């Protein structure tokens, strides 16, 4: 599986990549699916998210969307959420992962690449609860001989 294009997160006035798909539950619930335009975007959309603060509480909002209804036809946020210019992701409980710094290891799979840091933010029903940074190390190279036999090249 090809490495996937990330979502985007605007936080503190800066746009950073986001390696989490907070829109998944909404789309599953609504029975909506999009067309994949290429192998680096199997989900068929890219959302732009923003953490907005109100009276000391920070919440997660979807502020822009580019979603492929078909290969050619692209839907925006107001097409998927009519009458809304931003959407509070109140269904999202979990962790947002934002990779930061240099890429230490490229992995040709999903959001598998490893960067110097991950900014991790915990949300409960769309409200930011806590955040912390994780320092990553270059992962140890694994030699093919250390793989289980069935994963080695030329395995019968």
């Amino acid at each position: 599986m090809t490495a996937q294009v990330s979502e985007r997160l605007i936080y503190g006035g800066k746009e950073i990549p986001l390696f989490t798909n907070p829109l998944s539950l909404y789309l599953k619930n609504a029975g909506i699916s999009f067309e994949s335009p290429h192998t680096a975007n199997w989900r068929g959309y890219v959302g732009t998210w923003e953490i907005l603060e109100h009276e000391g509480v920070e919440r997660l909002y979807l502020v822009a969307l580019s979603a492929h209804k078909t290969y050619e036809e692209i839907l925006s946020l107001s097409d998927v959420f009519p009458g809304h210019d931003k959407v509070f992701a109140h269904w999202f409980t979990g962790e947002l992962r934002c990779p930061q710094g240099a890429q230490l290891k490229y992995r040709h799979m999903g959001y598998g690449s490893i960067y110097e840091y991950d900014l991790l933010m915990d949300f409960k029903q769309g409200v930011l609860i806590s955040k912390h940074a994780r320092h990553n190390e270059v992962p140890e190279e694994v030699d093919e001989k250390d793989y289980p036999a069935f994963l080695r090249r030329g395995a019968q």
Partner: protein
Amino acid sequence: MDLLSGISLFGLSWYQLLAMYTVPGVSYVVFHLVREYRNRPSEFARGMLAAIGKKKSVVDHLLNILVYAIAIFCITFGWPLFGIWAIFQSRKEAALEIERNKPDFDCLPEHLISKVDPHDAEIASYVIDPLGTAPTLPFGHLNPGWANFLADMTDDRDEMWSFYISKGSEYGKHRFAASSDIRGYAKVRNGEILGEFITESD
């Protein structure tokens, strides 16, 4: 042979009886060989296998012939046992098929918390958003999903239960570890989960 020559049933000699006994086994062998022949790799596939060094050697062919000869002998004379095995196998396959076709709900019976009244669930579901971007409907933007879930509660025996899956615990048919807390409501009938509406997860 002298001993066998004394065996007869309904006026049939032992070799006639043996021939009759082997008819089903031989029929199956012929059927299977024809199917194998029809499903043999195409010339293209054989060329590809040869190109990646997987061409069969003479020893491979001889081994193949030996395996086929043993299999034909066993099926010809032991077909009743194979018949019994086939019946068991088809029953096992049918049970697996039923398991495969079961809907894949995140919620498992151990995640159910308590029976809830849909009206109470709605009252507790309104979303607080100071920017006013969530609809003032039960479960906010998830309201259409909730409406569908309610519409599906058609049977008098259907009960609505709340459920909670904690981060790290097993969930769903494949029992993966949950990457976040998951909450929602399940449609339960006679103790069986028949539907779910997830209100929060990652």
